[in-house]
């Protein structure tokens, strides 16, 4: 297992009032993403546990792209990975932030 942790400063707080959401399942080629609104306005943390070692740069790029696109300020995002491809990771992150913005 490898754990990775990324800290970002988002452009702004993610809109919406939902305080937490979970999307996806830990299964082959899939992952679960837990999003919690627990950080100050523009802070964003992403913590990843993955069974595949050595994809640090790929994770870093996907997370950076997601933060740039959605500005998930205030979120702590925790990921249990089941060996998902980068496009699946990105999709789940986008689904998760959409859930947090609902209502």
């Amino acid at each position, binding site marked *: 297992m490898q754990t990775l942790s990324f800290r970002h400063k988002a452009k702004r707080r993610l809109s919406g009032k939902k305080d937490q959401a979970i999307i996806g*399942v*830990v299964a082959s080629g899939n992952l*679960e993403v*837990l999003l919690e609104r627990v950080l100050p306005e523009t802070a964003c943390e992403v913590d990843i546990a993955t069974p595949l070692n050595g994809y640090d740069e790929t994770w870093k790029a996907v997370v950076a792209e997601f933060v740039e696109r959605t500005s998930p300020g205030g979120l702590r995002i*925790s990921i*249990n990975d089941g060996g998902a491809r980068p496009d699946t990771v990105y999709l789940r992150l986008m689904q998760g932030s959409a859930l947090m913005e609902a209502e």
Partner: protein
Amino acid sequence: MEDAATSAQASWFQATARQRVAGLLDPDSFTEFLGPSERIQSPHLHLFDVPSAFDDGVVIGRGKLGGKDVLVAAQEGQFMGGTFAEVSGAKLVGLVRAARDHKSLPQTVLLLMDSGGVRLQEANAGELAVAELMRAIVEARCAGVAVIALVGGKAGAFGGAGLTTATCSRIVISGQGRTGVSGPEVIETNKGVEEFDSEDKALVWSTDGGKNRRLLGGADAFAEDSMEGFRAATKALMSKVPAFDLKTMQAEQERLAARQKRLGACDDAVSMWRILGIQEPETIRDMDAKKFIALANSIKEANHDAR
């Protein structure tokens, strides 16, 4: 929130545990116990370099079905085959024991089974959990709690999940649902391919599948593979759960002995269905849910009240 995966017509088979809970219960009625943010995860899986899940693959809580209060547990069949393990098992056992001990809690427990059995990395804890859960279900039923199993997930309900299902007051199953103790691969490995060919999906489904279980009285209601299908079938069963007493047990024993005598010589499902009096048993496989439910309700074998 509107979500295609939890809408009335969404497939139960394809859904995740969380989607099933959302689709089964009345909208926005669910409150989760020990939710994912509490991170009650497996303490063992990382030792095997295997990823954990924040809820260890079981969602538990309370909510309403058709306005009636229920406790609910759902196994996530996609996470490690929906396995029984230390944490996931304890969540199931705790929920059923809570119903047994506290009359102020809902006295109906819905178990959304989706599991191939015990998680091999935590086999001892998993086996214990199955035994404790079966005991808790029996004790809860003695205390007047209705425990209803819903089977229709990708992993089916085998091994400990099959035993748990069979211990419940009532069982709802869909056509895609399969249940038994030893799964097809296990039987083939132990008894040979001549005994049971696990690659022959038509054979597997006709034997372990929901339609056969329903016709033989091994399940009490057949559900269409949708959220609404399981909602309707479960609501109908909740109101008429048999008492759990000596009389019920004796009736169950008699029913099983009679079934063995009547069908014991058959070597496939179709020949059993013929003996049950079904005119064209070959048509069962492709029969739609509505027609099949009506047929099953007319078969005596399928409608014993023994369990």
